[in-house]
C-alpha cells in the first residue's frame, strides 16, 4: 500500500510528463490549473491518466472543485 507521500509524488511525476514541464517544478500545494495553465477539459484528461496509473475509478464529482495536487492525492489515496 502506497503512503500519501508516495501517491502525491507519483501524481506530480505523471503531471510533469503529461504537460511537459521541467522535472521538479511541481509541488503538492500547487494549484494545477494555475501552475500548468490548463483548462477544465485538460484537467479531466489528467484524471484519466491517474485512473489508469493507479487502477482506480475517480468519479467526476469526487474531484469537482479540487485544484491542488495535495487534495487530489488525498482523493486518490482514499480509492486505493
Amino acid at each position, binding site marked *: 500500500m502506497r503512503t500519501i507521500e508516495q501517491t502525491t509524488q507519483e501524481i506530480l511525476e505523471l503531471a510533469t510528463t503529461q504537460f511537459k514541464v521541467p522535472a521538479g517544478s511541481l509541488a503538492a500545494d500547487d494549484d494545477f490549473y*494555475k501552475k500548468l495553465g490548463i483548462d477544465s477539459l485538460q484537467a479531466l484528461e489528467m484524471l*484519466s491518466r491517474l485512473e489508469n496509473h493507479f487502477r482506480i475509478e475517480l*468519479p467526476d464529482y469526487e474531484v469537482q472543485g479540487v485544484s491542488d495536487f495535495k487534495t487530489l492525492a488525498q482523493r486518490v489515496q482514499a480509492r486505493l
Partner: protein
Amino acid sequence: MLDLKKYNSVGEALRDALETWPTEVCLIESDRGEEKQRFTYRNFKDKALPLAKSLQDLGIGPGDRVAIIMTNQSKWLISAYAIFFCGATLVPLDFKLKPEEQWQLLKHSGAKVLITEYGIWRQLGSSPGRSAATCLKTVLATEAPENADMAGAERWEAMKGTNAPVFVLQKRQDVACVVYSSGTGGTPKGCMMTHENYLEQCMALTSLYPFWPGVHYLSILPTNHAADFMVGFIGPLTCGAAVVHLRTLRPEYVREAFPQYQITYVTLVPLVMKNLQKGLQARFEALPASKRKAFEALRNINRSLTKDRPRLWLSRKLLPQVHEAFGGKLEAIIVGGSFSEPETLQFFYDLGIPAVNAYGLSEAVVCITVNDLKPFRADTVGKPLPGMEVAIRNPDTDGIGEVTVRSKTVMAGYLNEPELTAESIVDGWLRTGDMGRFDSTGHLQLFGRKKNMIVTEEGKNVYAEDVEQAFEGLLVKEFCVFAANFIWPQRSMVNERLLLVIHLEHGQAFTPELKSEISTRNARLTNYKRVHGLVIYEEDFPLTASLKIKRSELAQRLAALDREQSIQPI
C-alpha cells in the same frame, strides 16, 4: 410526439409517453465506454412508480419541494418523474456547487426531501452548512456501497413503496420547478417555472428541431441546467426518443460516445465547441499536403452547396471521415450557455455539422431565439421561437436596447422575491438585462449586458461583448472587455473607457509581439469602439457551471486592484 397542447402538467405528458412507447429505448447509461444500463419506457415506469409511492408515503404532495443533486444519469430523470407524479415541485440543483452553496439553496428552496448520489452525499453530509437547512426531512442517496455509513440518508434503491401510487393532477399554472439561475448576473435566484412554461417551450423547440423514436440525445450539460432539462429530458421523453448519459465526461469518452451511440443531437457550451474545433483543426493540419488540399476543396464545395440550408446527406458523402467521427447520424449541435464566437459556429457548419446558435435564459425556461438554419447565420442568435413576443426596449439610434420577452414560457416569478420579480417582469414583459437589436431579416443580434457598456463622447453606446469579437483568437489564456466604470464606478458619465483584461497562459510573457497584435486588432475597430487600456490579470477568471465568465464577479475582483496602476496604455 405527443400533442402537448392537451396536457396540464409535465407529469401528465410523461405519464402518457411511458404508455405510448413501452418498448422504445428511453435511457442508455455508459460508464467509461462500457454500457451499464439500458431502459425502455416500460422499464423507466417500473423504476419510477415505486419511488413515487415511497415519496407519497413520506407525505410528499402538491406544494412540497423535492431537490435533486445528481450527476447526469438515469436515476436523475426517474426521480424527477416520480416527483412530478406526486404533484410536488422539483428543485434541480447544481452538483458542481460547493456543499455550503448547496445547503444554502436547499434552505432557500424549503425542500423537504433531497435525492442525491452517495458520493455527493458524503461531501454534503459532512459540511457544516447542513444545520442551516432545517426544512430538509429526508435524504435519499443512490448507489451507496453495502456497508456504507449513510449519515442519516436512506437508500434510494430501497424506496419501493408496495402499493400503486396515486397520480396527482396539476394545473398548467402550478409550479413544476424552482430553478436556480447560474447566470452571470450575480446571486442565484429561484425561478418558479410552471408546467405551462415547460409544455409551451417544448412544443416551440420541437417544432423546429424535432425528436422521434430512434433519436439518441447525448446529455452532457448538467441536467439541472435549463438546457439539458428541456432538450435532455422533457423534449426527448415526450417524443419517444432516447437519452444517453455518460457517468464520466472525460473528453475521450465523450468522443467515443458519438460513434458508439450514433448520436443525433447534443448541446454544448462554447468552451467545448472551441476545444473540439482545436482538436479537429490539429488533425486537419497534420494531414499530408495533398490530402489536406483535397480536404479543403471538399469543404469548400460543401460550404457552397449548403449556403441556403443544410444538406446533411450530401455533407456526409463529401466529408465522410469527419461525419463518421461524430457517428454519422448527427443532425445538429445545439450551442448554448453563453455567446458563441461566429468563427467557431462557421467552422462546424462548413464541415456539414449545423451548429445551432440559440439565446435565452432560465427565467424564460431556456430558449427565446434560435437559428432555424434557413439559412445558417453565425453572426446572430436567430429568430424568436414560435409563441415568443420579443421586443427591444428603449432602443438607441442604432436600434440597440434591452431585450424583453412576453410569452407563455416566462416564469411565474422569483421564489420569495416579489420585489425582484416586479423589477424583472414589468407589464408581462420579462426584462432580460441583455442588449440586442433585430436585423432586417428578423434575426436577433446581441450586444452585451445592460450595464457593462460605455456611452462615448459622441453619444455612441458601445457594448463590451461586441468589442470582444475583435480579439477572438488572441493568443492568451482568456480575455474579457469591461467598461472601466463597470469595474471602478465613477459616478460620472463622461470620459468613459473600455478596457481589455487579459490572463496569460502559464509561463507566457507579455511580449512586444503580443502587445502589437492587440494594438493592430484594436486599430481595426471603429474608433469609438476601441479599448483604451489593458489590464494583465494574474488569476483564472471565475466561471459559472456552464463555463461562462462571471463578469460581475470578475469585475469585483478587478475592483480590488488600483485603477491607475493596473491600466496600461494600448
